[in-house]
């Protein structure tokens, strides 16, 4: 196989992996801090994509429509996520695992249908601005120029999160809360408030990812169910609550998927689950996770 072909496959794997990272990082953050596995996370992502489409169609005539719609979609999705947290998630902090899972599972079902009610069953397609309509040539390989944007966005969010966790006061609180919520609470930091904002931040990233996704291909109903399972795989591979792990896990899943589809198209997804299961068996807390609160 030619190098250019493999390289373009690598780039599409990278794009896919970073899209997964955008979804999985919020999932991992929410789980790490709140100990809640958010089944509805990818549904928020899909809501972000639809909202982005709506904003875009309002400004369709302008070249800047997409670039304005993406942050607007992220903010709108975050506001909605904040609302869901206040109304629903707040009530299940202290509940048992199965109750938390059922609540977020129910949220995924409800939000999925709300999307259907609001936007209808037709696929939505954003017409890209002219600047990203032509492919870019890297090492002689044609690369979708929007992919470059997705990749940059993925790394920018990763860097931003890393900076937030490492250098800001709130980042330190979040990191401490992953380690021991009781201790953080004992120091007089209002845990429920932290939870609300962590959830909102996670949903903000999901909404941002949805906005970015909306210009990759058409936005369709049910896209979320596939992504959520893969995001779980990513988080399991990388380790819950670990930013680095989520990034590495996303890139592994993205690249494995992208190359497996060349050699064994039917088995690509199966392979990802085999890898996930193998990691869970060998290191239940993932490649970069710590065996806390198992």
């Amino acid at each position, binding site marked *: 196989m030619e190098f250019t072909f493999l390289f373009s496959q690598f780039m599409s794997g990278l794009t896919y992996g970073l899209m997964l990272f955008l979804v999985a990082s919020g999932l991992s953050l929410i789980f790490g801090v709140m100990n809640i596995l958010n089944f509805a996370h990818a549904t928020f992502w899909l809501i972000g994509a639809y909202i982005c489409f709506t904003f875009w169609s309002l400004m369709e005539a302008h070249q800047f429509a997409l670039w304005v719609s993406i942050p607007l979609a992220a903010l709108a999705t975050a506001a909605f996520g904040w609302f869901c947290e206040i109304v629903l998630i707040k009530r299940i902090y202290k509940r048992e695992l199965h109750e938390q899972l059922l609540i977020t599972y129910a949220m995924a079902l409800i939000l999925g*249908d709300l999307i259907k009610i609001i936007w209808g069953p037709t696929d939505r397609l954003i017409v890209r601005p002219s600047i990203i309509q032509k492919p870019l040539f890297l090492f002689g390989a044609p690369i979708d120029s929007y992919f470059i944007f997705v990749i940059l966005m993925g790394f920018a969010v990763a860097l931003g999160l890393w900076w937030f966790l490492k250098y800001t006061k709130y980042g330190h609180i979040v990191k401490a809360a992953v380690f021991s919520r009781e201790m953080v609470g004992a120091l007089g930091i209002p845990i429920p408030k932290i939870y609300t904002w962590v959830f909102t931040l996670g949903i903000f990233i999901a909404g941002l990812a949805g906005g970015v996704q909306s210009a990759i291909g058409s936005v369709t109903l049910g896209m979320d169910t596939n992504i959520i399972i893969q995001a779980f795989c990513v988080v399991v591979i990388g380790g819950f609550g670990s930013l680095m792990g989520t990034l590495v896990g996303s890139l592994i899943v993205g690249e494995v998927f992208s190359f497996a589809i060349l050699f064994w198209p039917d088995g690509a997804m199966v392979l990802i689950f085999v890898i996930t299961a193998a990691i*869970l068996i060998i290191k239940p807390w993932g490649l970069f996770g710590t065996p806390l609160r198992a």
Partner: protein
Amino acid sequence: MDKKNSFLKRFWLPALLFFIALILPLVVAEFWVHVFNEILILGLFAAAFNLIFGYMGQLSFGQAAYYGIGAYTTGLLMVKLQWPLFACLPVSMITAGIGALILGYFCVKLRGIYFAILTMAFGQLVFFILFQWYSFTGGDNGLQGINPPVWLFKANAYYYFSLAVVTIGMIALYFITESPFGYTLRAIRDNTERTEFIGINVQRYMLINFVISGMFCGLAGALWGPFNRSVAPDLSSWQNSGHPVFMAVMGGPHHFLGPMIGSVIFTFLNAFVTGFTEYWPLVSGVVMIIVVLLMPGGLFGIIKSKGYFSSRDVGDVKNE
């Protein structure tokens, strides 16, 4: 006298339910016979799931895998080899049991959220195998033309057949849960460490239970194919794994009949709601949230305090 009383107290409800199930098809329209049939099959599925959840205290989010294996075993044997339905049911239990043995071997090493995620990952693994293996499973088209034998073709006939199989299955499950094995499971649920200290091989017990649960999930799946005349990969999707969880939680995981009651409510609601709206997921989601927020312990948890039921049922320690 006392013994007789407690016997009555323990078995009046299943006896009553069985009696109702027996006469119902004679008084309702054919559509509802189908609904009752679905209730029975999904009830057995949920009861099998509850072996892991209510009795062993672990949450499996992938029991649909074994349900799907059972359904496809029967479907493939009937469509490709023209096996009789009777022979397919035990074979489906065995294949589902083997699947549960292989995958469960890894699952029982984990607990809590990791157990839930690994069972779910394996569930998706089975789903994608069924979904992608066109030459063998028919891929996303599934398998059609799984016809039950002629004498079971009518809705009522197949209903009574299901009733017989599910009743036998439920009785078998009851004996398992009331056996020393069943009480060991409760001990594992209530205090895993202490159970280990008194010399019980916890992992082995969990694995055996996982296999038993998988076998009965497979039996329920095997009944589904001929009932629906077809099978599809969706049977083993993670959404379908969520149904028994919800049924058990709604009916009450701490009572043997809880999952079956949950199935009655869930399936009825489904049949009723899908009659006039396509937004069944929305409705079921709202019901799920209400149930979890307002009735922890399920239906049986609410009425238990009134003393209609023997407190021996699942040996509930947690909720008291």
